[in-house]
């Protein structure tokens, strides 16, 4: 409650600071704008920032640290209770206290110690918040006073404000980088924990994948096998099928659109391709599971082949359809970027249209086409929904495209769906798979980026 008040007051103060700071700047020079180093509104921003920013930083810090600080206090108060309950109940007890303090009921009968702690917690919380409110207002007032006195013809308000703007932009970019690094590191550490239980080489070269582990000692069943080879081959196999479908169709349609089609046709078809690219993959997924898969089984039956209704072929074909617009639109861009002068050079030698396309335009656009291809591969490898729905969950090590197969992404999903303990190799395996996937797509993207950048240099 107190914090809400603080936020509201801060907003009002900041707005007022801006308005009056700007006015004051003009007043200090008697209305003569030219006497000011910076435009009046920069003075307004200067005052507003000094008023709002320190208090806002304080507020954010408090919101981040509040839980930890308060927990520290009640841990002291709860000392004996916590010790009796044992370390694994630690978190649950603290949560109970928080719930009681907020006025909610908890699952079991609260002990007197717990109730006392909850009381202490809520009183601590409100007094601490009140303290923050006061400190925040004081900080705002001090900043306001400081900036107010600074406003004048000499103040380099513009430079100060620009510096703050730069800092804010910098922090935003840091957020993006730090999150990425954080995600990568957390995946990496969990994967390392996994490799502490399952040997690295067994993971990388094992040919059996059955992550179910006996939870109790006396349970029958395997002790789990974490060989990634079946998943890897499944992923590559399905990706390959997708590319066999998508590469020629995407490439040829791009050539047609860029070189042969009339502008009218082009303008009609390009948006359609973009719509195709915008269809959520889960829609492709049920298309694969409900239409393509059964259709293939029907064909198979007619031919006397046994096709399982969840087959790598169905998943691969639908995935191929999914990446066609991706490939064709990137390839189209690459072809259109080939300078007109090269085409004219070929035509002037008496080359036909198709000779020009094959001998001059494709070689010139090749780096762009390769980049499109690699990006499409990384997209196919990371694709999950279609495979979950159409290719099945069983990790078969087989070369038969009519059999069901599974991929790395699908296994990550199945490992983390349902009940799980956070410590078992089964769960940790998801992180190891994630790491493998991350490295594979990273390499593909970096290579694609490198290739297409090289290409750009050539014709500038």
């Amino acid at each position, binding site marked *: 409650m107190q914090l809400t008040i603080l936020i509201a007051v801060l907003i009002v103060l900041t707005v007022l600071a801006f308005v009056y700071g700007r006015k004051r700047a003009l007043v200090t020079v008697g209305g003569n704008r030219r006497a000011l180093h910076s435009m009046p509104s920069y003075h307004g921003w200067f005052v507003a920032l000094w008023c709002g920013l320190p208090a806002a930083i304080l507020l954010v810090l408090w919101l981040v640290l509040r839980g930890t600080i308060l927990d520290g206090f009640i841990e002291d108060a709860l000392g004996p209770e916590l010790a009796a309950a044992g370390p694994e109940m630690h978190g649950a007890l603290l949560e109970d206290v928080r719930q009681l303090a907020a006025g909610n009921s908890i699952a079991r009968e609260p002990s007197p110690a717990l109730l006392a702690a909850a009381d202490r917690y809520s009183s601590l919380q409100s007094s601490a918040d009140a303290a923050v409110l006061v400190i925040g207002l004081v900080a705002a007032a001090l900043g306001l006073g400081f900036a107010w006195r600074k406003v004048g013809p000499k103040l380099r308000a513009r430079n100060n404000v620009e510096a703050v703007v730069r800092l804010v932009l910098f922090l935003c970019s840091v957020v993006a980088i730090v999150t990425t690094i954080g995600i990568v590191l957390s995946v990496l550490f969990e994967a390392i924990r996994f490799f502490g239980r399952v040997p690295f080489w067994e993971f990388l070269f094992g040919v059996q994948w059955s992550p179910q582990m006996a939870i109790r000692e006396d349970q029958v069943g395997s002790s789990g096998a974490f060989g990634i080879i079946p998943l890897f081959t499944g992923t590559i196999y399905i990706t390959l099928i997708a590319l066999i479908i998508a590469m020629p169709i995407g490439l040829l349609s791009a050539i047609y659109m860029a070189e042969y089609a009339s*502008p009218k046709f082009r303008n009609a078809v390009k948006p359609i391709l973009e719509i195709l690219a915008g269809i959520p993959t889960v829609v492709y997924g049920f298309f694969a599971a409900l239409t393509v898969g059964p259709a293939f089984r029907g064909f198979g039956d007619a031919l006397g082949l046994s096709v399982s209704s969840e087959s790598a072929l169905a998943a691969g074909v639908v995935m191929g359809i999914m990446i066609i617009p991706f490939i064709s639109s990137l390839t189209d861009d690459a072809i259109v970027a080939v*300078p007109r*002068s*090269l*085409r*004219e*050079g*070929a*035509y*002037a*030698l*008496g*080359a*036909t249209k198709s*000779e020009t396309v094959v*001998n*001059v335009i494709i*070689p*010139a656009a090749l780096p762009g086409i390769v980049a499109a291809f690699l990006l499409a591969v990384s997209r196919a490898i990371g694709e999950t929904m279609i495979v979950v729905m159409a290719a099945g969950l069983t990790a078969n090590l087989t070369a038969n495209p009519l059999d069901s197969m599974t991929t790395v992404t699908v296994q990550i999903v199945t490992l983390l769906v349902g009940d799980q303990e956070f410590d078992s190799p089964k769960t940790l395996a998801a992180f190891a798979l994630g790491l493998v996937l991350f490295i594979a797509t990273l390499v593909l993207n970096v290579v694609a980026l490198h290739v297409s950048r090289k290409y750009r240099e*050539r014709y500038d």
Partner: protein
Amino acid sequence: MDREADVAEARIDQGESPFRANFALGENSSATPDAGAPQQIAVTAKDVSVFYGKKQALFSVNLNIERNRVTALIGPSGCGKSTFLRCINRMNDTIEGCRVTGEIKLDGTDIYGRGIDVVQLRARVGMVFQKPNPFPKSIYENVAYGPRIHGLAANGRELDDIVEQSLRRAGLFDEVSDRLNTPGTSLSGGQQQRLCIARAIAISPEVILMDEPCSALDPIATAKVEELIDELREHFTIAIVTHNMQQAARVSQYTAFFHLGNLVEFGPTEHIFTNPTEERTQDYITGRFG
């Protein structure tokens, strides 16, 4: 007409000189011109008008281009020089909405007539562009490309010969003989332009069209290309667009002055530069406008 016949003919011709391969379009077969005698006309343009959509860019141009001579097209920017040049190898066909009326004859055959294959026409009328535009291939492959698509070489050795001859004629062979397999784009601008000339002459055209071939080159490279043009005259008919008055005076025997889509004056270069009939020509060559 099918290509096989051409190939056979081309091969026979190459027995004597690989640069006189003759792609007969009509019945006539061109005799090798006698340097001293009055020259034959290679290209005749009659009442040629060009429209880009609704806009007319060229108004009823009549112009004859003599064999084994250099004809310069001069005039201020946008006056239709390139447009006229690109009519001669029907390059304007590749531009959406461009329409050509009138008649252009190459060796007496209307090149816009029915039954004319632009592929064969362009094998007879080569072109060099303003900006060097080598293909993203090796130096060798750049030159070999034309002979390859027209089937001018029976085997690899013949192709090697054509490539070497063409590079020599373009004055480039000595500079690149040790790196024929490096990309054409790795050469300097002047070298790239001479590579493009070598590429054009490798298919032994009768006419070579050059659209401001030196405007992207430095003075030394320009001088080399000019020298080359003078040598090429012996074997080819050349039409060159240029913005550089001195260049026109140096390399050409005939000059055509275009202005606002009209052919204002056409005649021997000497005459145009010393004693033009039209006032506009006088104004332009003395630098009063354009």
